[in-house]
């Protein structure tokens, strides 16, 4: 992974000193709350329902065991001993004291971490596929490009006061898109052109929130060395032309939609041509320098362990289930990537205690070269595990409650913190996740249903990505009462589809029944191995509506 040199370290250290001084001024009354607001937001600090919330950047979801252990100790020393993994591969502390935040940032800087631009109207953490670099189906490792974007976007002087937040995601897989790039302000797809050169297919104007829209292609092929000047051009046009009169219409998606992609492209290309051959053109030396940080770990020369695993699966049916759902094929023979599930029913999705994350860090050292990844589905990945060690790792995870064999199923719920924590939320989301997980706890049934993304957001801001869940649930407030709107058919993958709303919303206690009826309809209507998502798209919403809204007798 990327290791800071003296430049990177100095910048992060100076950022801590800057925020310490700003916090002092705020506490002394020199800075008004509304003036401190953008300054603290650009360091990831929200003032929330019960306490401040600090969002720590995990660049493209990658971290070391040393960093994770520091997160555990920070959560013990300054918070309540647990953390939340977010849908944008970051980590949140829910209860830090404002006065402590400079010290927390100082501790993070010691392990090459920060909270820079994890909120506010600026360029946020760049995200990517949690299996980047280890899957066979990949143009090339996207992480060096994410790091190059991280450095370019970090403390960018021109784009710190944008009309609204700005999110970039990179995908390099050809058949899947685990980074949901079509639902980002800019989505970058690594591609090869007819000459065999690597570049980016660039999408712009995607997003969720109030107006969910998939991004549109602005460029079919951008040479890699032009990445930064092209990003600058898009951001500059957006900074100058994006709406600032209404925060709900301020995202780039609204600008692109209003202008039309062709007119928007013209402005961007005109701006880009002025700078494209200037000093921002990436040098091969820089590309090689950054790529050098992402070379493969010291894999042993191993063979795939099909016989051993078959034997172990046969002897332990629970291991068989875990292997089927929580283990991903690896391009290196004899290795596998595993998902540490943070979705145990009865616990908030994506939450982990300090004890759990300390042990996960130990397991990363023991089994996976000391590195971990955070997935957009709010789980943790150990990416380089020897197949011969899978069974012992499985047993240790089981003992910790971290081997819930439900990855990719209905119970692998994506869920925002919701009304229990978040000041923006209209409704609670965690109890809904829990009710669904409790109701559908039969593993054989879950496996029979196959892959289903259930995404839950407590408000229109859509942190739980409800629009692109195969089943999406959105909390809404009606005259002080919490209701839930259900949508079907969303797809975060290559197709990039926004789900359609089923109909009138439901009360919280109706949701498990509603989901049950939706699933029954699917089971009755599906063709042999048809996925839930494909059935919904084939038969449309009507059969589901009829079942769900039928008058009960």
């Amino acid at each position, binding site marked *: 992974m990327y290791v800071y*040199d003296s*430049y990177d370290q*100095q*910048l992060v250290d*100076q*950022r801590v*000193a*800057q925020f310490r*001084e*700003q916090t002092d*001024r705020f506490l002394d009354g*020199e800075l008004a709350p509304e*003036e401190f607001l*953008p*300054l603290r937001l650009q360091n990831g600090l929200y003032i929330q329902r019960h306490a401040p919330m600090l969002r720590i950047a995990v660049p493209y979801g990658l971290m070391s065991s040393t960093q994770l252990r520091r997160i555990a100790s920070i959560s013990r020393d300054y918070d309540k001993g647990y953390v939340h993994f977010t849908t944008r591969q970051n980590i949140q502390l829910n209860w830090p004291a404002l006065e402590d935040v400079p010290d927390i940032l100082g501790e993070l800087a010691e392990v090459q971490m920060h909270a820079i631009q994890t909120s506010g*109207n600026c360029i946020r953490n760049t995200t990517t596929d949690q299996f980047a670099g280890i899957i066979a189906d990949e143009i090339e490792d996207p992480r060096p490009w994410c790091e190059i974007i991280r*450095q*370019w976007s*970090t*403390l*960018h*002087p*021109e*784009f*710190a*006061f*944008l009309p609204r937040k700005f999110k970039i995601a990179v995908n390099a897989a050809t058949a899947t898109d685990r980074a949901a790039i079509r639902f980002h302000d800019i989505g970058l797809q690594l591609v090869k052109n007819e000459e065999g050169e690597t570049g980016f297919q660039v999408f712009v104007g995607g997003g969720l929130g109030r107006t969910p829209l998939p991004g549109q292609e602005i460029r079919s092929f951008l040479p890699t060395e032009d990445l*930064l000047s092209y990003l600058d051009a898009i951001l*500059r046009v957006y*900074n*100058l032309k994006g709406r*600032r009169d209404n925060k709900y219409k301020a995202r780039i998606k609204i600008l692109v939609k209003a202008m039309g992609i062709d007119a928007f492209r013209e402005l961007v290309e005109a701006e880009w041509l*002025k*700078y494209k051959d*200037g*000093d*921002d053109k*990436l*040098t091969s*030396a*820089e590309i090689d*320098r950054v790529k050098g940080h992402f070379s493969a770990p010291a894999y042993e020369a191993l063979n795939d362990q099909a016989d051993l695993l078959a034997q172990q699966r046969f002897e332990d049916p629970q291991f068989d289930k875990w292997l089927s759902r929580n283990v991903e094929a690896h391009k290196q023979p004899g290795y596998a990537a595993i998902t540490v599930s943070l979705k145990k029913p009865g616990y908030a999705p994506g939450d982990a205690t300090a004890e759990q994350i300390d042990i996960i860090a130990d397991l990363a050292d023991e089994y996976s070269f000391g590195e971990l990844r955070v997935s957009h589905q709010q789980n943790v990945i150990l990416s380089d595990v020897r197949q011969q060690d899978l069974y012992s790792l499985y047993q240790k995870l089981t003992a910790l409650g971290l081997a819930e064999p439900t990855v990719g199923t209905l119970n692998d719920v994506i869920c925002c913190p919701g009304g229990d924590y978040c000041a923006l939320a209209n409704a609670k989301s965690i109890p809904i996740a829990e009710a669904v997980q409790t109701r559908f706890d039969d593993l054989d049934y879950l496996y029979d249903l196959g892959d289903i993304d259930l995404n839950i957001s407590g408000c229109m801001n859509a942190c739980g990505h409800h629009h692109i869940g195969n089943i999406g649930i959105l909390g809404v407030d009606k005259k002080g009462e919490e209701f839930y709107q259900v949508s079907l058919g969303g797809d975060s993958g290559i197709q990039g589809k926004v789900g359609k709303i089923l109909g009138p919303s439901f009360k919280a206690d109706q949701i498990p029944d509603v989901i049950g009826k939706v699933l029954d309809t699917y089971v009755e209507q599906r063709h042999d191995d048809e996925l839930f998502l494909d059935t919904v798209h084939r038969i449309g919403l009507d059969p589901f509506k009829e079942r769900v809204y039928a008058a009960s007798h």
Partner: protein
Amino acid sequence: MQPLIKNGLLVENDPWAVFEAGEDGAFPEYALLPLSFWVSQGDEIRDSVFKLGAVLRAGDEIDALIPYLPQLKVIAFEFEKFADGRAFSFARQLRSEHAFTGEIRAFGDILPDQVNYLQRSGFDAFVLRSEQEAETALALGNTFSVQYQSDAVQSQPLFRRRVS
């Protein structure tokens, strides 16, 4: 009088002032004239011997001002709200694209904490809201000694300067 910082120093007796030209079109020297004035009368005052500037407000665009850049000693951006970041991009365009070498000034609702980014975007003069904020802005001048990006001051991004 609000404190003015120029090139990292407090400046006394700054002569420049925003001036809304009267019906007869008369204006004094060191007037910061609105964009609408330059658009309507810029050609007529091409031969003026006065030192003149322009003031741009929220919603104004720089395009119409470009033909008059050779006549302008100062371009002043008035910030209605500090969170409106458009002028950062305008300043960068004026410096990097149009090679404007006169003064680019920020005034209105700006925070001392924004001065560093404004400077890097091409501003070189700042009218702060109070003496105290001017002192803060001066004290914050050396917050960062490293930057990743190219900007209006340093045309080379860090990756072209990095010594490992």
